[in-house]
């Protein structure tokens, strides 16, 4: 059944895709837990269904999980034969993913949101390849929340963990292959020729005598054919599209102002809502005076609504954004902030330091005797690293449009978490998930912020819709968070402290390594806890240290303080800080042992072929060790695996007025098979700019007396055009099933820069942003 994801004339579609746990019991449970303020409104049972049997963990890093993931995929796609599923699941049905018009236009509907990563080109490439579509006639649309669009590994519709291509590689190719078989079967009848004699080519089925039937002509008959269970996928040597650099399907629309985002939704009778949030997380409205706000022409009402976590705020409803925004400056609110923890960044650092000195939760044990008193080791490194809260601030402000009709509702939102969001909105409105049509809008950036286990801003919008409906008001509401709401709204990459003590032999040999990490847990208290927290340690904090490819004897302990600041995954999550610590320490150990930092890494990573391949490629193409750099410029190197992909950077840096100038980055990437090199290039260029951003002054969220000190991009600084270096990207050729590119370009850039600065100045950088 073709999903309908827009409606006109004010009519809601009648048929709704089943989504989420399709039972009244679980919907009731979801509603109950929302009412209790529990972010896990989706219900634990759905998340327990997430199977680890495939070895495909959300944040799998390191050899074990990568091999398991690789073998699961390759078992299914071993040359020539596909795995035979017992009865096709919804996510395997071509009709849910592909529509072919009479004009031959092939519209691929993908279950993944595109917020810039390029899946709206790369996933259709998979389908188009296997069905031999005419690429010039391929279009892409984003699927609404729906059963067929749930990720086959995670059993919810989501984008995160750099898993879209990994999870879709098999799935979408099979869809294409099944559809090809159906097109051929239909053509066989019409051409009166056995199917085995027919071939497909660029949107047509071709008979041996040259007769051709276009897919547009065959479409109706093809979709009436039985869907084959088994399919034969192409060999990489047969690929015509996959592996080629293909421009984005939405490039022209986005360059001419014709691409609609969630914030651009236009509906009859629409109201715009601007929120008033408490200044301290968890605050509640004690009393408010809307008189001055209501006097602004265009403002309709100011209502109090509950927010997540027991907080409350106000919603200003108007006939457009500007009146509501002006009115916000005029509303008078008294806040009840009693009993709330009021976080102060300076005090917090002292607390973290104190915690680090106490025994924590043990993640890895190792022999620390070389750090003991008896015989001091030849070399010792004692280092404390600090990292601030980081806000995502995607370019498109967070927004959500809801049309609630009492017994059903439609949502338009750029969601990375459709199943979760649909269920939580349903819970607020007293609906079953299948009574909520959730349309996935193209979003202006995500970086993890649009995948919030608590569905925070959607729940706010739903509360507004619910309150208005209860008061007899009708019509859709579009809630837009201002940039200030976003910068101050929490869900940050947590602040961390690393305390490291290393004993080494002065020749590059590590004798003992004591490592303590302090930081809030992202997943405790969410449905992801069972999946990612083991024995009290959150894997999203330790990734990059705990499963490091380096054979260091690391004894790792963690502390997860509870802090009144909501936190969330931020592009590359734990690797945002662990890679900085590891790659700068590795550099320091190399220099202490008077070993070249590249040679040192090659020794240590000898068993990791993908690391060596990525590193060697970057080194070779950069001229490292061969080219003589201009005076005042130094090389910096870092290599790090995250989300199953290895990225190596060799950078050229100089220092001017105490600040690094990043001239050039040569990148070596091992992501297994490169589906679309253009996507990969964009992701690497963009991710490394984001990583450079982490080093710049102003790239931090700080709190004073519970209030976030920053408010907009004037004081929370992003990297700008002049901060971007020249980038020379090289991809290691591979035919193995692809691994992810969403996040892996972020972690290695800051340590590579810090290593170059250390070479120039002799000073080690121990914090992000770089100290001024």
């Amino acid at each position, binding site marked *: 059944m073709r999903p309908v994801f827009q409606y006109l004339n004010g009519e809601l579609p009648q048929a709704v895709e089943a989504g989420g746990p399709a039972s009244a019991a679980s919907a009731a449970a979801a509603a109950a837990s929302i009412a209790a303020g529990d972010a896990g409104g989706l219900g634990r049972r759905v998340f327990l269904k997430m199977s680890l049997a495939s070895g495909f963990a959300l944040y799998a890093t390191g050899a074990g999980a990568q091999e398991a993931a690789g073998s699961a995929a390759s078992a299914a796609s071993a040359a020539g034969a596909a795995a035979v599923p017992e009865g096709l699941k919804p996510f395997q049905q071509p009709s849910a993913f592909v529509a072919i018009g009479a004009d031959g236009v092939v519209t691929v509907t993908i279950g993944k949101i595109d917020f810039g990563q390029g899946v709206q080109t790369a996933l259709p490439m998979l389908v188009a390849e296997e069905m031999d579509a005419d690429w010039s006639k391929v279009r892409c649309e984003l699927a609404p929340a729906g059963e067929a669009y749930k990720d086959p590994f995670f059993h919810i519709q989501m984008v995160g963990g750099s898993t879209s291509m990994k999870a879709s590689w098999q799935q979408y190719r099979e869809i294409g292959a099944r559809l090809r078989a159906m097109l051929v079967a239909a053509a066989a009848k019409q051409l009166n020729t056995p199917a085995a004699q027919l071939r497909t080519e660029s949107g047509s089925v071709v008979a041996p005598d040259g007769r051709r039937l276009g897919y547009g002509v065959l479409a109706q008959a093809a979709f009436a054919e039985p869907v084959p269970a088994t399919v034969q996928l192409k060999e990489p040597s047969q690929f015509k599209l996959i592996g080629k650099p293909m421009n984005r399907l939405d490039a022209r629309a986005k360059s001419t102002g014709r691409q609609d985002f969630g914030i651009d939704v236009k509906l009859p009778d629409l109201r715009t809502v601007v929120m008033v949030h408490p200044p301290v997380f968890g605050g509640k409205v004690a009393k408010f005076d809307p008189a001055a706000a209501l006097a602004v022409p265009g403002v309709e009402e100011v209502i109090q609504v509950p927010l997540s976590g027991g907080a409350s705020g106000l919603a200003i409803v108007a006939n457009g954004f500007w009146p509501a*925004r002006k009115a916000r*400056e005029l509303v008078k609110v008294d806040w009840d902030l009693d009993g709330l923890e009021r976080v102060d960044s300076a005090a917090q650092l002292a607390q973290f330091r104190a915690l680090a000195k106490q025994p924590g939760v043990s993640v890895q044990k190792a022999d620390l005797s070389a750090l003991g008193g008896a015989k001091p080791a030849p070399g010792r490194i004692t280092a404390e690293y600090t990292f601030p809260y980081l806000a995502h601030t995607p370019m498109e402000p967070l927004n959500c449009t809801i049309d609630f009709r009492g017994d059903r509702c439609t949502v338009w939102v750029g969601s990375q978490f459709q199943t979760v969001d649909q269920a939580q909105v349903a819970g607020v409105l007293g609906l079953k998930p299948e009574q909520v049509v959730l349309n996935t809008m193209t979003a202006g950036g995500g970086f993890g912020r649009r995948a919030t286990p608590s569905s925070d801003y959607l729940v706010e919008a739903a509360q507004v819709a619910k309150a208005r409906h209860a008061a007899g008001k009708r019509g859709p509401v579009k809630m837009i968070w201002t940039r200030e709401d976003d910068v101050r709204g929490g869900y940050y990459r947590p602040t961390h402290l690393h305390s490291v003590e290393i004993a080494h032999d002065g020749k590059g040999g590590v004798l003992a390594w004591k490592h303590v990490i302090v930081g809030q847990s992202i997943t405790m208290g969410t449905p992801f806890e069972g999946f990612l927290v083991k024995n009290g340690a959150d894997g999203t904090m330790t990734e990059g240290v705990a499963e490091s490819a380096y054979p260091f004897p690391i004894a790792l302990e963690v502390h997860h303080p509870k802090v009144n600041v909501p936190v969330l995954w931020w592009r590359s999550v734990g690797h945002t800080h662990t890679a900085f610590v590891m790659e700068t320490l590795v550099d320091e150990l190399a220099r202490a042992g008077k070993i070249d930092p590249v040679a040192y890494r090659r020794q240590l990573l000898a068993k990791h072929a993908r690391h060596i391949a990525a590193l060697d490629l970057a080194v070779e193409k950069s001229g490292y060790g061969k080219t003589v750099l201009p005076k005042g410029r130094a090389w910096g190197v870092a290599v790090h695996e995250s989300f199953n992909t290895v990225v190596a950077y060799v950078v050229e840096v100089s220092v001017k007025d105490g600040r690094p100038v990043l001239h050039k980055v040569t990148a070596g990437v091992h992501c297994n098979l490169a589906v679309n090199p253009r996507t990969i290039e964009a992701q690497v260029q963009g991710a490394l700019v984001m990583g450079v951003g982490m080093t710049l002054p102003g790239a931090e969220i700080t709190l004073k007396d519970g209030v976030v000190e920053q*408010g*907009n991009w*004037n*004081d929370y*600084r992003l990297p*700008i055009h002049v901060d971007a270096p020249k980038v020379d990207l090289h991809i290691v050729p591979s035919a193995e099933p692809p691994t992810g590119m969403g996040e892996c370009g972020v972690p290695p850039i800051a340590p590579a820069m810090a290593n170059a600065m250390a070479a120039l100045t002799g000073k080690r950088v121990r914090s992000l942003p770089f100290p001024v």
Partner: protein
Amino acid sequence: MGARFAWDASWASSGSSFLASPCATACTAVLGLAAAVALVLFAPPALAAEAPGNFHPTPISATPNRQDGLAAFAQLERVLRHPRCLNCHVPDSPLQGDFSRLHYPPVQRGVDGKGVAPLQCATCHSTKNSPLPHAPPGLETDGKPGWHMPPANMKMNWVGLRGAALCKVFREPKTNGNRSLAMLEQHMLTDHLVAWGWSPGPGRALPPLDKAAFDEQVRTWIRNGAPCDATEPLRKSVGTTKAEAARDVADHLRALASNDQHLPRSQP
């Protein structure tokens, strides 16, 4: 060229010999054009926005008191050194905010003080302040966005200066935009870009004196001979106002055009 057209009393002393020169007639057109150009180039930037030509400058007192003058300057310099003024009286790029940080996004002064195309001041600074905190301030000049800095050839920079050094930059025509004391007073008291400092929009600190008090300190300083230090001679004249200076130019041009041998209006 600046010294030749400076609107102070020394012009008159050179006038007669100039007009008696043989090339007076032949030079008329060139001089007329040059004078017109000079008026445009060397007029204070906010010429159009100041009060019309009926400003009555405070004259120097017959009994000026140096200490009173110095005390007045010590007060008015607190305003000059406040971010609302200082942020644009800088050597290079403008500063921003109550902590006088480097302006963000990065911008340049440009030749005319209005930015380097295509990123001009008017790109972001519109015709009025916004009600939103941290939005760029704005003001209107003749219906158009009027925000700007001093031009590159007259930066009026006083970063890091105080006391006598600041006072001299502020007072001397070659660093203050070719202003006589009368013109300087008119600028301080009536210019709308100066006045903006007291209506800067939400979230910006006000200068340490209110506008009326500031105006009074300016007058007191001028009245007492506009002293900058303990020893230099007190000023004896406030010079011409802009309106007077403009009338002087017009008179000269008329005299040249009619090949009239009349002497200029102000004579020794």
